[in-house]
Structures are given as C-alpha cells and as structure tokens.
C-alpha cells in the first residue's frame, strides 16, 4: 500500500472533463453578492452585536478603554475562581500576564508543537480559564473570528470550560460577508486555522433540548473596549 494516488486523480479528472453539465440557470457570478442579513442604517453595530451574543447566553461587557478592559478581565478571573489561565501571547491588550500574576493567577502560554503534546494536554486539561483576543467580529450574527498564528494558539479557546475574549471595538463588522469579502481571502491565506465562534459550544442531539458546553467552552465572556 502507498499514498500514491495519481492514477485515481487522473481517472477522476478525466471523467469530469468528459462532460460538463449544462444547467439552465444564469450562473454568472455577482460582482457584489446580496447581503444576507437586514441591518438598519440607524442601528448601532455594538448594540446589535450585544443583542445577538446575549441571545446566545454570552456574558457581554462594554468598557471605555484598555484600563477598563483589564479591570473587567480580572473581575471575571476572580468570579470564576481561577488559579491559572491559558492565554495568547499576542493579546490586543497590554499587561495581561503581569496583571494575572499580581492577583495570584498563573498565566500559561501553551506550546505543544514538536513536544510531547499528549502529556501537555493532560497537564493543561484542568486549567479553568482561557483568554484570547479576536481578529474580527460580526454584529448581525454575534460571531467572533479567531485566527491562528504566531502567539495566537488554538488551545485557550478550546480546552478550558470558560473562554474570555478581548475585542477592540474597531474590529466589529456589520455582517459576516462584509468581513469575508474585505479580508477573508487574505486571512485564509495567512492563517492555517480561522474559527468563527458564535456563542458557547452547544448540542440539541438529545430530544432537541439545547445543552451548553458539550466539547468546547460552556461559558463565553466578551469584553469590548475602545
């Protein structure tokens, strides 16, 4: 056995090139696709975003500045009774690790690539809190965009039961398509993993009853600051 599949590739492509389906529809690509969601010009993006995420059980806070954001973060950490937290090195807010240490909370910047990752996962599995930034957010759906990269790992938003997101207000877009059309292609070419997060992890598999926190975070906090 081998992973050599060029014969299958050639056969499949040859079959596909034999016929091209003739569809009756007009298939020309629109220059500017229709927006999906309605949004009034008068509506405040931040208020719409707040309404959307609160509908999804997200705990939302809006603070005036970076100092306020740091205070809000520390009170979440205290409320969650956390003794350690996983975090991005590249946060949109300065001084987070130092502030955490000042209240006796251990900041952890996980690094698993090329290491004995399964041992590290096990050691990190009980960390109660993850802290990350967000590269963008969409008001009409209440969505956060988390791109991976240097200093922006996947684990802080993946393993802990509580996830806190620090979002600068300038990164708020109206609709998903607004961001995807303006920055989507470029971001996908740069970042190997881009996740849209819309509320906490949920399932409705058992009798369609919605339960939060199946695999990912049960609680999601969003702190927006100017």
């Amino acid at each position, binding site marked *: 056995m081998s992973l050599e*599949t060029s014969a299958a590739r050639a056969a499949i492509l040859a079959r596909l090139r034999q016929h091209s389906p003739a569809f009756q529809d007009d298939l020309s690509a629109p220059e500017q696709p229709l927006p999906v969601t309605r949004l009034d010009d008068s509506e405040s993006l931040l208020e719409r975003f707040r309404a959307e995420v609160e509908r999804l059980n997200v705990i939302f806070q809006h603070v005036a500045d970076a100092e306020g954001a740091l205070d809000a973060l520390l009170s979440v950490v205290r409320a969650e009774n956390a003794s350690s937290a996983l975090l991005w090195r590249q946060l949109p807010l300065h001084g987070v690790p130092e502030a955490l240490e000042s209240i006796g909370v251990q900041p952890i910047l996980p690094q698993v690539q090329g290491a004995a990752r*399964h041992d590290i996962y096990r050691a990190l599995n009980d960390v109660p809190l993850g802290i990350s930034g967000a590269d963008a957010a969409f008001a009409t759906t209440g969505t956060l965009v988390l791109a991976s990269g240097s200093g922006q790992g996947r684990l802080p938003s993946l393993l802990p039961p509580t996830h806190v997101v620090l979002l600068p207000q300038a990164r708020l877009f109206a609709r998903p398509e607004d961001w995807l059309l303006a920055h989507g292609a470029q971001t996908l070419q740069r970042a190997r993993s881009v996740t849209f997060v819309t509320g906490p992890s949920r399932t409705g598999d058992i009798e369609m009853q919605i339960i939060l926190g*199946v695999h990912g975070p049960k609680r999601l906090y969003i702190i927006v600051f100017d």
Partner: protein
Amino acid sequence: MELKANAFPQAAIIALKDIQLQTALARGTTNASNARLRAMSEVTDAEALRRQARAAKLRALRNLPALLEQFEANITQRGATVLWAEDAEACNRLVIEVARRHAVQRIVKSKSMATEETGLNRALEAAGLEVIETDLGEYIVQLDGDSPSHIVMPIIHKTREQVRDLFVEKLGMTPSDDPEVLTAFARQKLREAFLSAQMGITGANFLIAETGTVAIVTNEGNGRMCSSLPPVYVVIAGIEKVVERVADFATLVQLLPRSATGQRMTSYVHLISGAAQPDEPDGPAFMYVILLDNGRSRIRGTRYAESLACIRCGACLNVCPVYQNVGGHAYGWVYSGPIGAVITPLLKGVANAAPLPHASSLCGACQAACPVMINIPDMLLRLRADLVAEGEAPPGLSAGIAAWARLMSSPFLYELSGAVARLATRAMAGSDGQVRRLPVPLLGNWTENRDFPPFAAKPFRQLWRERQRGQ
C-alpha cells in the same frame, strides 16, 4: 452501511406503528421546520439568496475539475497532502495507510456523511484501529451499534430514556435521564479520547478553491477538537464540496445553518488551510485531504447532476410528509428523506433502491425548502421512468396504465366504467355513506387506513346533459 433500500415498504410499516418513533419524529421535524422558517424570514430576500446560493453551487459543479485542481494546488502549498479516492474502499484504505505511516492507534472522528457512505469505522476497526465518534449523537449511535437517521439530527429517533439506558449499560453511568447530565457524562468520556488520540478525522461542508480551505460547520466544537488537537488531521470530502470563491462561501455558510437548525450561524465554523506552521504554538503537524469520488463524477455526467449541489442541511427531510412519518432508517441507507430517495438510487443503482423514487407524493415541499432549490420532485419522476426502462416497474403498472389509456380514449367505456363504479361503491357504502373496505386488489390498500367516498349519484356528464336539455 449495508444497503436495505428495497425493504422500504416493510420498514415503513414497522416505523408507522412505532409510537416512540412517531413522537420523536413529530417533535423533531416540526421544531426544525419552524426554526428554519423563522430564520429564513429574517433575511433580506430569501428567494434571491437561494438563487445566489444555487448559482454558486452549480457554477462550481460546472467548473469542477479546474476548481479541484486549484483547491489542491493551494492547500498543498501550505503543507497539506491531497489524496484522491475512486471509491469507498480506496478511501478507507488511504485512511488506514495514513494511520500506519504515523503509528496511529486511537482516532477521534467528527460527524461526516461521506464516511458513513464509505463505512469507514468498520474498515478502521477491521484494521485494528480504535475509532471514536465524538459528535454526541454519533457517539450514542456508535455505542448502540445503531445508525444515524437524519443528516443533521442523527438520533432524532431516540428518546432520552433510551440514551440513559445505553449509558448505564455500556458505560456504567449512574442512572439519569436529564439531557444535561447525559451530555456532561459524554463530555468527560470524550475529552479523554480527544487528549490521547493520535489522529483526528472530519468531513467537510465546503472546500474553497480560491484559498485552498476546508470549512467545517459544527455546534458542539468536536470538529474543532478533531482538527486541532491530534498531531495528524485527515479530512474526507466528496469532490462536489468545492466552491469557487470566498464570496460564494459567504452566502452558503449563512444559508446552511438557517436551513438546517434555524441558527443565524452555528457555534463553530472552522476554516483550515493547511497543517500548523512552525511558529504556531499548537495545531496538527500533518494534514491530509482525501477527495472522494465514489460515483459522483459519473452522476455529474447525467441529467441528475443537480443533485450534487446538495449542502446536506436536512431541510427537505423535515418538511417531507413521508420522512415525517417513517423516519430515516426506513430508507435503508446513509441518506434519507427526499434527497436520499434521489441520491441512494444514483449511487447504488436504481434497481437496488427501487421503492425510494416512489416514496414521495411529489408535493414539492422539499424543493420549496431547499436552500439551493434542487428540483427533487422532477428527479424522482425521472428515476421512476428509469425504473420502468430497466424493467423495475411496480407489478401491474404497465397493464394498469394500458387499461386506463383504453378507458380514457373511449367515451362508451368511460361512461360504462363510471356506472359500474357508481353502482358498486354505493352498494358497498355503510350507514354513514362511506365505503369501509374496497375488496379489489391494489385499491384495497387505500381503505386499510381510511374510508373511501362512494361515487356521486349522478356523474358530471349526466348533469351536463340534463342542464343542456333545460331540466
């Protein structure tokens, strides 16, 4: 999964008499349909958006070979290995080979219809590998040796009590039928699997050619766990999943959750464009994408090509009066409901799924609900014609149609048969004026579950003649 589509009539009768199943189906399909209607009523222009989504999928199907090559080139450049599989067996073999190459023992897997289609789990287990389904519904199905009965809600057919009994029996859980407790119990079991697995497998909802990106849409977050934690990540995607541009994806990724569960966006949409880069703190070191044909390229060359535009939202199942009553298992394979009645005969041969094209009243609710407007009723009719052409018509069909044609082309025979039917049905009618049972072959089935109204005392032609005579 073993194909049992030809047993549809028998399976349907059993399903109709299963009270638990009937309760679960009524709740599940009604909730999901209402949620879809609410979510689609909020958009700017639902019809125009559906046309836009449809055009994006059909355009991609037309340009499929070029787009697959573009997808392959883009994602290969970012460290993923793209493999091509002609059929189910080749696909399963490739996954096993990748597992051996990386000394994998334990695999975590996220929900994927394509892998249900290839019977991947059974093949992996036969090769001595451990594979764990991590979507809650699929985990329950796997524990029970059962199969999913809905594209989006795999255990729509199970009650909470059945889940409780399963967890107690197989996993020794302290009994509880609270979905919150059941979910928390599964979370803890599956977390252990995520942390220790050497390979993660997911399907794909879309492949974006422009950027070489795999998109997976989930609510639980298990897809993201499978694609982020294990060192080896394998995607299995049907070749019809590719779309051309990010702009096409922008429309489709919003119509999919609105049509499936009525959500504006699912909890997670994960976009993966290659293995992790060396300067990233975490992520998979290896990524493989298996592009699965398994009959798709053949279907694309037929007049059923449009069926490949399906984005697997399940909306047509929820609105179908047949699915609502018999559920997914009766269809006898991976894909059920109206789209299953089209896809199963196309993938497995129409003679091997002969009852399915007939399992429809052709009411058109499926097409009206479909976010990409697939003309399912039209394809079901064509499949019925194919069945006749293959000599697979239901018994008596051609004799019946010949008799009908004879009757309808002779005014004398037409009036005579009307008179016979009138006399016979009026003689058979009970005290309430209804016929309880028609003692005629074929027609007798009609009165098994309902009464038959007798023919009118005076037929229309007689009324007309009397009117003309001025009576």
